[in-house]
């Protein structure tokens, strides 16, 4: 037990040192928008807790699903990524209405490799977590728009840490690239449960004509200069009418 913890901790620490997490978040750009509202491929799954012949749609139709794509031989982001996900999920003990499906995109990984990974993370008995492999991984990653690149020199995949939200109808509703905080995970969980998430551009000192000014201390919005701009066209039009009338009235027939 003690040996496992040491190995696990070492892997996690090495992973943190060798991974530029911030760079991944900053460069995700439009990639998170790719394949949104597309159906994910209905891949057949093999996993310890899954019945034989179970497909991805059967898992998602029971509960909306958070899909994490990793590979067990990863010396990079996969372990810290899974650890962060585990910690974030642990903070949501009251929320049971979703599954977390961890799948390997490495064809070398077997059901046993995934099972060992689940054991290492202490998740093999957690009903919300499933660890699985598929023999149709190519179709699955294509349907998601996930593009790992094999680096033969390092014998590693160069890949994003990707979390995919899939609703109960099998549609991709949200993607998160990189190791993300609990609030971002909350947005993903809301999207797979088809609930509305209001978002608004944050206050910016360069935004001079905002319709509302948000006060972080009071949590309230106050009307801003922008609202005056909404009324401005009508006011200017009125001024033009009165001005034109003033100038042409001397010539009135």
């Amino acid at each position: 037990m003690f040996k496992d913890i040491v190995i696990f901790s070492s892997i996690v620490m090495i992973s943190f040192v060798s991974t530029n997490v911030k760079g991944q978040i900053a460069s995700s750009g439009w990639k998170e928008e790719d394949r949104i509202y597309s159906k994910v491929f209905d891949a057949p799954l093999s996993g310890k807790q899954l019945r034989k012949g179970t497909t991805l749609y059967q898992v998602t139709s029971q509960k909306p699903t958070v899909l994490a794509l990793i590979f067990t031989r990863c010396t990079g982001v996969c372990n810290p990524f899974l650890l962060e996900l585990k910690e974030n999920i642990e903070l949501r003990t009251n929320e049971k209405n979703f599954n977390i499906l961890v799948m390997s995109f490495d064809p070398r990984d077997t059901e046993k490799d995934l099972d060992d990974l689940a054991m290492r993370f202490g998740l093999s008995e957690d009903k919300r977590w499933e660890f699985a492999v598929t023999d149709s991984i190519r179709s699955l990653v294509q349907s998601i728009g996930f593009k790992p690149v094999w680096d033969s020199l390092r014998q590693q995949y160069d890949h994003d840490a990707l979390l995919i939200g899939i609703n109960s109808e099998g549609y991709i509703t949200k993607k998160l690239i990189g190791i993300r905080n609990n609030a971002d995970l909350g947005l993903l969980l809301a999207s797979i449960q088809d609930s509305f998430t209001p978002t608004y551009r944050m206050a910016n000192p360069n935004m001079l004509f905002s319709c509302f000014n948000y006060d972080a201390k009071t949590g309230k919005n106050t009307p801003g200069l922008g609202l005056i701009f909404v009324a401005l066209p009508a006011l200017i039009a009125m001024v033009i009418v009165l001005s034109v009338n003033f100038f042409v009235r001397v010539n009135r027939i």
Partner: protein
Amino acid sequence: METLKLRKITSVWIIIVLTLFVVAIVLGILMRLNQGEIIQQSPITFYGNMTTHGLTMIGIWFVAGMAAVNYLLERYVKTSYAANLFALVLTVIGVLMLWCSTFIGEFHAGWTFLYPLPFKIMWAEWATPLFLSSLGVLGLGWLVWSISLMAQILKKYSISQAFAWQHFHKNPKVETPPFILITMITLIGVIACLIAAVILLILFFIEYFSTGSFVNDALLMKNLTYFFGHTIANEMLYLGLAVIYELFAEVSGRPKWHTTWYVALAWNLSLIFILTAFFHHLYMDFVQPEGLQIIGQIASYLASLPAAGVTVFSILVAVYRNKINWSLTNLLFFIGVAGWVIGGLGAVIDATISNNFILHNTLWVPAHFHTYNAMGNVLFSLAFFHWFSNQYYHHKERQNTLKLSILLIGGAGFLLAFYIGGAESIPRRYSTYPSDLPMGATLASIAALFASLYLIAILIFFFNISKKCLKILSSSPQSS
């Protein structure tokens, strides 16, 4: 009285409008064929065509209404030929710039160019400033033209007379013709929405050239976009209504319509309602104050009552149990009013907040605006074009019933596909439909077929009317 110069420039407007209309219809049919999976366009081509189609249609039917109003206004006041010509030149330049930005630069942010889409460069970098500049050029020409026409009205009528306020009292000494009242109300709305466009473009350009030191508020930009977009789309209908008030009774052999207190009241109220109805485009924007959402719904309801109610009442009274000299002109006016009312009802249904939650961004939206444009405003302008060209070169036209039948069948079938799609929650602005929505592709194919029929009818009108307009253009003062 109108001059030969005015007659010629009106002919040029008509030929340009009809030519651009044919091109824009073809773009629309290509879009529906692509959605129907009969042809394959890249998403860039589809959305480029959508941008061009939308802006071209809005532009041409606005200038068609303005040209008609300018021509008929000469019956009451002297209008400025220079302003008319200035608008014509700037419209041609503006359309060429717009088409360059979409066809060559592949700008494809849609005709509403919602912020911040124009800055998410997925096309040639120069296409964004060119697109925004094309709107600036068009807006400048139209703003000068609108202010010029309004100034000419105010040279003859005081503000209170132009608004027909004297009709609120018994036995007014001066009568404001309905045409003057509606034109004045409409021009003020046009000026307001063009100023909204000017402010919007200025804000876009400041951000574009500020390299990050100035950013816009998305909510403000959306409000301004729809102040401009919604209002101009409605005001161009009102320009068509002004033409109906002036010509319908005349071509039907009935006494000319007069302004009464309720006509004056209805149109005065229309100005307020039309300038506040655009808030209904922001129902899904949760940060918009709730009060403005409620104003949006109430104004949308009320905007339809004065103008539509009074106009429909006037038309029905004019034709009910009265001898009417039916011609292609007043038939087009009559059918156009029906199309306007049907499209207006579709709009009011969508402008109801509870319905908007279901119909928002479905095909119901293009359904209603295509109804009051393709089967409303277009028919108003076609009626004017037909009447205008027949003024000088009257030939007994044959097969009017056939022409109208093709137009009606084509138009109705094309629109029905949109309405059924909307009721089935088929989303709009999809270049192709996902396999889960097979009905979307089927309806698009059917719509393309009926739209082709509509195009055939328009081509017949185009050849008949353009032929006469070309004769007017080549006529000399003696021959006229």
